[in-house]
């Protein structure tokens, strides 16, 4: 890294440098460092409460680090004002664990909402087409008029993914894509993420407990344990390490 916080490596999409974050005196992340290259899929593994979702929220600027730097596209997220933050976020999509669909909007409206605001040059027909195409891509082509509460858990996840993808982000952050879903539905979501990775070459950071799905998608793993970085590397590299604690997290 240079002094002004710019990453020297232009291929780096996201970098964590000695990041610390705590809540109410409890340290959730303790000097965590890793990076994600463009087009790479990184899976963050670890037990509940080890700061995996906090890591994602730091990446998109919903939380600010207490110490260290979170760099996204070479921008230090903590130093950005509202406008700068919005600019960086336009390059990112975020799939929440609960999908977090707007419950007073139909699926079509959920997807059209960011398009109306962030792509004002698009005509209503173009917005409609983009919404329909994205919903079709995730297998919800016929469900655009439905309200979120009329959808199953798996459909909500897909709809959340569609909303995250509708602006064609360069970086996709995914929080627990398989939580609360049966094995088959979880596998369908994993397949969708694989499709996004291979067809769009989107940089992805996925928080998950599902090591089976993670091994299918990930180029690299980050393993967090009690707020500290236990391991960072490719699945093959981590498989070779003789660390029982690490193997508990990454063994299927």
């Amino acid at each position, binding site marked *: 890294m240079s002094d002004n916080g710019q990453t020297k490596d232009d291929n780096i999409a996201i970098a964590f440098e000695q990041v610390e974050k705590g809540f109410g005196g409890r340290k959730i992340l303790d000097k965590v460092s890793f990076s994600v290259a463009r087009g790479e899929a990184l899976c963050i593994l670890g037990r509940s409460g080890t700061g995996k979702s906090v890591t994602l929220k730091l990446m998109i600027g919903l939380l600010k680090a207490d110490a260290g730097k979170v760099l996204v596209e070479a921008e230090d997220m903590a130093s950005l004002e509202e406008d700068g933050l919005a600019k960086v976020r336009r390059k990112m999509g975020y799939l929440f664990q609960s999908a977090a669909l707007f419950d007073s909007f139909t699926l079509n409206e959920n997807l059209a909402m960011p398009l109306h*605001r962030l792509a004002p040059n698009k005509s209503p027909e173009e917005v409609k087409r983009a919404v329909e195409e994205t919903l079709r891509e995730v297998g919800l082509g016929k469900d655009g008029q439905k309200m979120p509460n009329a959808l199953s858990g798996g459909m909500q996840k897909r709809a959340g993914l569609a909303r995250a993808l509708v602006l064609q982000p360069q970086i996709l952050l995914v929080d627990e894509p398989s939580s609360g879903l049966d094995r088959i539905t979880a596998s369908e979501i994993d397949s969708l993420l694989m499709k996004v990775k291979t067809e769009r070459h989107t940089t992805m950071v996925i928080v998950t407990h599902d090591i089976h799905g993670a091994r299918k998608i990930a180029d690299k793993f980050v393993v967090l344990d009690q707020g500290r970085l236990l391991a960072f590397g490719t699945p093959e590299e981590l498989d070779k390490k003789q660390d029982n604690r690490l193997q508990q997290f990454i063994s299927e």
Partner: protein
Amino acid sequence: MLRSGFDFIGRVTLFGAKALRDAWVPPFEWEYLLKQLYEIGVGSFALVVASGFALGVVMTLHTRSTLVQFGATAEIPVFQSLAFFNEIGPLVAALLMAGRVGAGIGAQLANMRATEQIDAIETLSVNSFKLLVVTRIIACTLMLPLLTTFMDAAGIFGGFLSEHVVSHIGWRLYLERAFDGVVLADFVPPTLKTAVFGYLIATISCYYGYTTNEGSNGVRKAATNSVVVSSLVVILADVILVKCIFFLFPDQAI
């Protein structure tokens, strides 16, 4: 206790001031504002009109039993209109709005916070404060004076019906008497003060809903606090605003 009270007042004041400032900064959320105007205005219309009508009937029944002793039943219409224009219409409409809209805003925003919908809006590079808070505050500020006017009209109509049943007074004569000696200053300042009530109700309710971080318990607290605090603040603000109106329009104080 006192310190936390002042702390709360300070935070709500800054919250409301930010909304006032952001209301003038583009981009403007016209579509969402129209939705809020509809939900708050049209959604409250039936409640306000029904309450105004019922109050009008009851007020006339009470006034008649007193005025009949002095042979002054001809004054019932003007008593009715002045009571509604000056106090009953503005205050009751505001309290009804605090109950219906305040609780709704508090619960809805708190639920959106608990289910990460507000975070989702932020991740889409949309300013959630402008979209959710500013639009609701503008909608409440604009709609309450309008709803108050409907409440006044419903109250006068309720009073007429009540009086018509007893004395068979005609509609035209009732109206003539209701507006006899009533000037614009009797209607305009008290109605406009409800814009302040609307601003206060929406600001307090949005504050409780938008800033909560206690999950489903936060939804319950936000809904309850929105109604209790905004109702109390409306009543206290009424005292101050009535004094201001008397200061600016001294004839009203006589």
